[in-house]
Structure formats: structure tokens, C-alpha cells
């Protein structure tokens, strides 16, 4: 057998030869010093070449990107990815939560002139955020954040907040140009009322109780009742329907009361605030009178807000009141 060529030696070392050919090579290498040396050299070349190619990956922070020393790009870093995932989930949750209410919220925002709050006070963030994050219409214990919208919004990532804001605003713009049915049902809350500041109509003080009537837009009044309470109460949402026969309304409120008794502290009798007569008279269509109730965790005072608005709208009014107080 003639001496082995270099290609065959490399192929043999790397196990790429068919078995019969490999056996011949093996036999020859065993008996030929020259080819034995060539095999040793080939092994060295294979190892050295491999090492050099590995060195290609090894430029630290250089213009030639490499794997090991190159800092991981920010978007690849695990902790940031995790954070991003959390944000996305949070964002989607918000979307889902808001999605269902979008139409209503949009209408209420238009009706209440929520934007005027932002403009009037110049205080960021807008109260929508507070409403979005607060347990609207829920039966949860009111948190400090409810009376301090700023602290709620602080937890909402700015980017998500902004994107919602844009989305909402563009939708609002469309809705204002083309009032949806929700607006038609509350004709007193016309787009023209946007920007109208809240006005105190009357303040009625009795023992242990302060009742303030606000005009939130022309013809739309809400009543805020403040009662110093000794115990924590829960947010209570009550509703009565104007235009329904008084007996039916009583029955309805009784039903609501009994339902509430099951869920909340029995020592606190729920208050269904009768809507003031003038407020009821305002709505030509059968506007629904709703109430929301909450407790200021700092003072312990209990508040009831009543008006011909949806619960979400009342929450917005509440946010405005909180904003105005600060």
C-alpha cells in the first residue's frame, strides 16, 4: 500500500471512511512510521484548527459580535423578559377589564366632562386611570387608593396608560362626532357640557351628616352625603329606577337590602339614598338613579354619592371630587 494522503488520514481520524477502507488504513498506519507521524500531525492540525475557529467567537465587546463576552441585548435578558411579560399580562387584563365597559365609559366620560378635570386642575394623571384600577362597582373594601387617584395610577405602567389614553381619546373623538345610544339616553349630558366645571348647588348640614349637591353638567346633579362612621363599611352600589312605581321601587330596594345583608356587616344598615326630586325631574327619559358608597380610610367618614348616572359615571364624579379636594 502506498503512503496515505492527508485527506484520507483526516477522514480516517474523523471516522468518515467505510469500514473496509478504515481497516486497511489502520493496518498501514500501524506498520508505517512516516504515515504514523502524518497521523499525529493531522490530529494536531484538527485540534489547532478547531481552537482557532473557537477563537472567532471570542472577541469581547468588539465590533465583530461574538457569543460569550458580548453583553446580552436588553430585550433578551431574562429578568426584563419576565418584567415585560408581567406588563403585557397587566396590560391585557386592563384591556379586558376596560373592554367591556368601553362604550359606557366613553359615554360617561363625555357626559361628565372628565377631560375638564385634567384641564382644570392640570394634575396628572387623569382620573380615568384611577377608575380603571379601582374596583368599580365591586363590593371590595375601599382602598386608600380610591380616594387618592394618583397612587393608583402610579402603579399603571406609563406606556400602557398612554396607549389606553390614545385609544380612548380617538374613540372619544369618534363618539363625540357621532353620539352613540348611550349618550342619547342621557340627553342632559351633551358633548357641549365637556369642560364644564363642577358646581356646588347646595350644602345641607345636619347632625352627623353633610349633604352636598353638585351640578356636574347643566341639568345633571349629584348628591354627596357625608356621614362620620365608626366602623369600616364596604363599597355599596345601590340602584333604583326612576319612573318605576314606588312600591316596585321599595320592593327592589328591599330586595337589594336583603341581598346586601348577606354579604356585609349587619350592624351597618345600608343606605339607599333617595334621589333628590329636582334631579329626577331633569331626565326626560327614564334616567337611572344610582348610588355608590365608600369610606374614607383616613377619617372613617362614610360617603354616599347619588345621581342619575351609571355607577361608572358616579365613580368618575367621585374621582373628580377627590381630585378637587386635594
Amino acid at each position: 500500500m502506498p503512503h496515505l494522503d492527508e485527506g484520507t488520514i483526516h477522514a480516517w481520524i474523523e471516522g468518515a471512511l467505510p469500514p473496509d477502507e478504515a481497516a486497511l488504513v489502520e493496518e498501514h498506519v500501524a506498520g508505517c512510521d512516516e504515515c504514523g507521524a502524518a497521523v499525529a500531525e493531522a490530529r494536531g492540525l484538527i485540534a489547532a484548527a478547531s481552537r482557532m475557529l473557537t477563537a472567532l467567537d471570542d472577541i469581547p465587546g468588539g465590533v465583530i459580535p461574538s457569543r460569550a463576552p458580548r453583553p446580552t441585548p436588553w430585550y433578551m435578558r431574562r429578568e426584563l423578559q419576565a418584567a415585560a411579560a408581567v406588563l403585557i399580562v397587566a396590560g391585557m387584563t386592563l384591556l379586558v377589564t376596560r373592554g367591556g365597559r368601553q362604550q359606557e365609559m366613553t359615554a360617561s366620560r363625555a357626559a361628565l366632562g372628565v377631560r375638564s378635570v385634567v384641564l382644570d386642575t392640570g394634575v396628572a394623571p387623569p382620573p380615568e386611570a384611577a377608575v380603571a384600577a379601582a374596583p368599580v362597582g365591586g363590593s371590595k373594601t375601599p382602598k386608600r387608593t380610591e380616594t387618592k387617584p394618583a397612587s393608583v395610577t402610579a402603579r399603571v405602567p406609563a406606556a400602557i396608560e398612554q396607549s389606553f389614553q390614545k385609544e380612548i381619546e380617538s374613540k372619544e373623538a369618534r363618539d363625540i362626532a357621532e353620539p352613540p345610544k348611550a349618550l342619547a339616553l342621557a340627553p342632559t349630558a351633551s358633548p357641549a357640557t365637556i369642560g364644564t366645571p363642577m358646581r356646588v348647588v347646595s350644602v345641607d348640614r345636619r347632625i352627623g351628616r353633610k349633604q352636598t349637591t353638585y351640578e356636574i353638567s347643566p341639568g345633571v346633579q349629584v348628591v354627596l352625603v357625608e356621614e362620620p362612621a365608626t366602623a369600616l363599611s364596604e363599597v355599596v352600589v345601590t340602584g333604583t329606577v326612576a319612573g318605576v312605581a314606588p312600591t316596585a321601587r321599595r320592593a327592589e330596594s328591599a330586595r337589594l337590602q336583603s341581598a346586601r345583608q348577606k354579604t356585609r356587616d349587619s350592624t351597618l344598615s345600608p343606605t339607599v339614598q333617595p334621589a333628590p326630586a329636582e334631579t329626577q325631574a331633569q331626565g326626560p327619559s327614564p334616567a337611572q338613579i344610582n348610588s355608590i358608597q365608600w369610606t374614607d380610610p383616613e377619617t372613617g367618614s362614610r360617603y354616599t354619592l347619588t345621581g342619575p348616572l351609571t355607577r361608572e359615571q358616579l365613580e368618575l364624579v367621585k374621582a373628580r371630587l377627590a381630585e378637587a379636594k386635594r
Partner: protein
Amino acid sequence: MVNTLTDVERLFRTYNTQLVRYLTRRLGDRDWAEEVAQETFVRALRQTEIVNERAWLFAVATNLVRDEARRDSRRRRHLALLAEQERESRTEPEPTTLERAQEAAMARKAVDALAERDRLALLMREEGLEYPEIAEALRLSPGSVGTTLSRARRRLVESYESLQREREAREKNAAS
């Protein structure tokens, strides 16, 4: 069949690391390498049948590099020049880092000095491709792969050693 997303996902999981490393070594640019690798997997999605997956992937990636290199050769040359200047003007913080950077730069030069086919064969072999796969990917006769690889290795090591000698001579001159 490799025309479903699941198949390509499997291909990606199995071969992406190798392919990106191969391309990075070939191109000297990780981002570019990742782009080419991604494009390769996109092509795989369009392919109805692939007999030898690994050989096919490496062949397609190699062709993509060749096509793109042809198109962008002038722009790339300019960028490489700028990169070289930048590299020279920058001072490395640690001696070990400098040492490694110099080794890498020499390895890069030595690899670049190889003939394209030798270089590709060697880089593919480094990623574990078998001789028949390399032959298929590079359209070589199966019997010539050993010769190609042995030539590539010898030339690579020789060029590297020659660069090393040059550097040592330069350092000696600088010291004296």
C-alpha cells in the same frame, strides 16, 4: 416533509445554534448571521421535501450568504474598514482581553485567507456535519471532503502561525 410550522420549529430548535455559530464564524457578524439563519428557516418552511435536513440548511444558509455577499460586498468592505479602524483606535481595558482580542483577530484573518470552499467545509465540520453532509451542502464529491478539510486545516494553521510570528516580531521591535 418540512412544510409545516411544527417541523420548522423542530428544525429551528435542533439546528439554530449550530447554524448561527457557523454563520457568525463565516461572516464575523452575529446579527447578520442570525438574519441569515432566520431566512434559512423561512425557506425551509416553503420547501416541500428535505432529504438531509442539516446538509440542506447549511447549503441554503451558505448560498444566502454568497448571494447577499455579492450584493453587498462593496458596502460590507467599507464597513469592515471602518470596523477595523475603530478596533485599532480603541484601547482594551485588560491585558487578557487584549490578548484574546488579538488572537481572535488573527484567527479571523487566517480564516478569511482560506479559499471559500475550504473555509465553508471546515466551518461546517466544526458544527458536526458529517462528510456526506458537507459534500451535499457544498456539492463536492464525497471522496474529496477529506482532502478539502485537510487542506483547509493546514492552511488555516499555517496562516495563523505566520501571523503570530509577524506579531511577535512587531512586539520585539517595539520593545527594543
